[in-house]
């Protein structure tokens, strides 16, 4: 891509920029919010953004078939994130139980 010329808005560019934007929103959320559940959601957003980027890496323009490798990577990433979310939610619940027990 040359500097000085307006880059053409191809679908992969749109998706790529959207992916980075979603990741950035998640990053801000993960760093700046206090609420435990919101932080988990923000981390989920980050993973969606990273997934977007990998999907864009698979895109090769309409006539060619997409590259299957990044798709496999995205699926692995989703599986990893699902288990991580489950652990985080379990910890949040446990912590909430412990804190209410202490209050009463």
């Amino acid at each position: 891509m040359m500097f000085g010329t307006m880059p053409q808005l191809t679908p992969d560019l749109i998706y790529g920029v959207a992916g980075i934007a979603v990741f950035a929103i998640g990053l801000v959320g993960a760093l700046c919010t206090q609420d435990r559940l919101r932080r988990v959601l923000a981390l989920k957003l980050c993973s969606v953004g990273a997934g977007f980027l990998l999907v864009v890496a698979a895109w090769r323009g309409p006539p060619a078939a997409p590259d299957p490798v990044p798709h496999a990577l995205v699926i692995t990433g989703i599986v990893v994130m699902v288990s991580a979310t489950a652990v985080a939610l379990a910890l949040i619940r446990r912590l909430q139980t412990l804190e209410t027990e202490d209050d009463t």
Partner: protein
Amino acid sequence: MTLDPMILALFAPLFGAVAAFVLPRAAGAVGLVAVLLTCGAVLALARQVLAAGAVTLELGGWAPPMGIALRADGLGVAMLAMTAAVGLLVSVGALDALREARQRQYFWPLWLLLLTGMNGVYLGTDIFNLYVMIEVIALAAVGLTVLSGTREAVRAGLEYMYASILGALLFLMGVGFVYLQLGRLDFAGLIAAEPSAALSAALALMIVGLLLKTALFPLHFWLPAAHANATAPASALLSGLVVKAALYIFLRLTTHVPLPDEILVTLIGALGAGAVLWGGVQALRAERLKLLVAWSTVVQIGLIFIAFARAGQVGLAESWKAAALLILAHGVAKAAMFLAAGRIRDEVGHDIIRDLDRAPIRPTLAQFTFALAAISLIGLPPSLGFIGKWSLMEGAMAAGYWHWVAVTMIGTLLSVAYFSRVLAGFLRFDRVRAPLGEHQGWALADIAPLTLAISAISLGLLAAPILSFIELGYPFGAKP
């Protein structure tokens, strides 16, 4: 087909973890067998590497970039051996140290999963697999952090979880960028790639993610609480081994894809200096023994990064060896120290530093172990910590970078100061109210930390063979 030791090193702990979960009553035995099998596999692998240099295994016969390859070279096997040996001794200690049935039940599956992930990191050759492995490590490590079940531990574990997942996702984002640029993810492809701005950006994302996971100042905020509130065997594993996985990936990455700028190397060294100073001050202020030990981990991580940056960009070809020595030294000594701190706490009943010398019970063997580990962490000869610090300063002096020498010296003085706070209490006998010598507080569980501490000291005498071993197989040379 014969069983390859690399396969065994990955699958023995993995199947062991499943078996230990399914058979909770036999979890301890299953765990010990799995760790012993891993040790055997690492020994076999070390013999192969000694004979032939780097060993590569393509899983299922698929060559990279399509398939997944495992590769063992000197540095990788040294890390595997440190992990397996420390892991074995911590496991032996855990048999005695974990009192509650619930802790015993969940410790073994989590620890074996952790071992699987660490072995995967040390054998992995492509960055996506490394991402998956650091997530496996993160989940198992959070589980170990909250094992004690107290409110502080769960709170610290949750903080650790956020930091760890965020670090892994930053790494994943970098992986995505690399795939966009190169269309492949194996280290061989990274070496061959032309340096470009986009590749540097990807590298920067991955490095920030790794620094968060390895807790380099100022990204260390999650570490002290997490390591101080875990049960003793878990703390030993977390502090001695887990932070090293991300550190190892950092070393691999930065030497495969050279850092683009001298300023970046200096910045990493400066962050290390920040860790040494800030961690040292915090360790001086810590009120509890385990918290002090946890802050000393922050200091040591900083020291490893100073070793990495000691001679600037040009010196990277040599500096990684000093960093690797410090990684090995810290792994062994810190595991010993956390186990000893756990033993002291078990015997005395608390771990408030100020009141340790008022206890009627003197866990002398654990105190001796703590002192030996402190000698290696401070860096007194002939310990491995001394050799690591010496090669750090030697390289810095040769390159004329005296500021790194100065920071290391200040850090050493600080570490003498904060460890003296503890050791001075061990040596005072005038405050004891109860009759002395009634209870020495020795137990079978002292054997594991004592062995670790003695090895931390005596491995320094073997520094030359260790140094020539980690160079085997051209870990960072031109040969991929």
